[in-house]
């Protein structure tokens, strides 16, 4: 789906029932995004909760210039970064890789690894910035402009970062 179509369809639910539907749709995506970024299950759940509270409280401020998903993922991303700051970013990032790695002896079980195990291992090897652009582009399916808005950097930087990130990820997967 292109950006224009997603934006034209953007509506923030105003009643609780419709919002519950929105929660069911976004909860798995935000939760998995956080887990893929190395957050613990409890932290990922916390990010989902504070994100959805912020979406509900801020529903009157939503600008239809952006896609609803971009707005929500943007809030989720910033809530995740806030949590990293609270917990100490370095410690969180260091433990992130460990959380993503499957708890198995690498060589003996490499044949039995699932696609999720392999992807998590590879993502854990990427830098935080590279992991984020990969997930935003290929998991959330966001445009360059949307990623630029969420990450707060120019589109040229996003393109360059994504180019290097996917090269590294391809290499990690082929070697894994």
């Amino acid at each position, binding site marked *: *789906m*292109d*950006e224009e179509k997603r934006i034209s369809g953007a509506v923030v639910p105003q009643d609780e029932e419709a919002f519950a539907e929105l929660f069911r749709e976004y909860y*798995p995506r935000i*939760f*998995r*995004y956080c*887990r*893929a970024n190395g957050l613990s*299950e409890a932290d990922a*759940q916390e990010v989902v909760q504070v994100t959805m509270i912020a979406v509900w409280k801020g529903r009157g401020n939503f600008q239809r210039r952006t896609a609803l998903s971009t707005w929500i993922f943007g809030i989720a991303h910033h809530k995740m970064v806030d949590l990293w700051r609270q917990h100490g970013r370095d410690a969180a990032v260091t433990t992130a890789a460990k959380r993503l790695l499957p708890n198995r002896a690498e060589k003996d079980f490499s044949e039995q690894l*699932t*696609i*999720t195990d*392999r*992807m*998590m291992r590879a*993502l854990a090897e990427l830098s935080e910035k590279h992991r984020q652009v*990969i*997930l935003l*582009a*290929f*998991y959330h*399916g*966001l*445009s*360059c402009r*949307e990623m630029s808005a969420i990450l707060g950097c120019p589109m040229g930087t996003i*393109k*360059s970062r*994504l*180019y290097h990130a*996917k090269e590294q*990820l*391809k290499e990690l*997967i082929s070697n894994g």
Partner: protein
Amino acid sequence: MDKCAQMQPLLPFYVNETLSSGARTAVDMHIRSCKDCFTEVLDLQKLAIMVKVGVEGISLPEAKENEQSGEELARVMIGLLFLGISIGLHYRDGQFPIDTKVSVLGRTINLK
């Protein structure tokens, strides 16, 4: 800058289908005649699917809860099994030797 260098940064967004129609047409035209960029698009499609499938495979807490409830059920089943064994061991001469005297809050009550 050659055409490939211009197109390469657009290819991930061509694959995730977020390019504007103009840019998409430009990439379409280019990959028809450029084998390297076409191969890169195929690689990116494969990578995008792997990311999508890989991340979608991360289990949600509900799934874990189901696993836990499965464990709980298993515990209950094992408990029932041991209860059955215990009853079998106490069965004597067609009846269970039940002690009818029960002690409750320091008082002994005879259930007979």
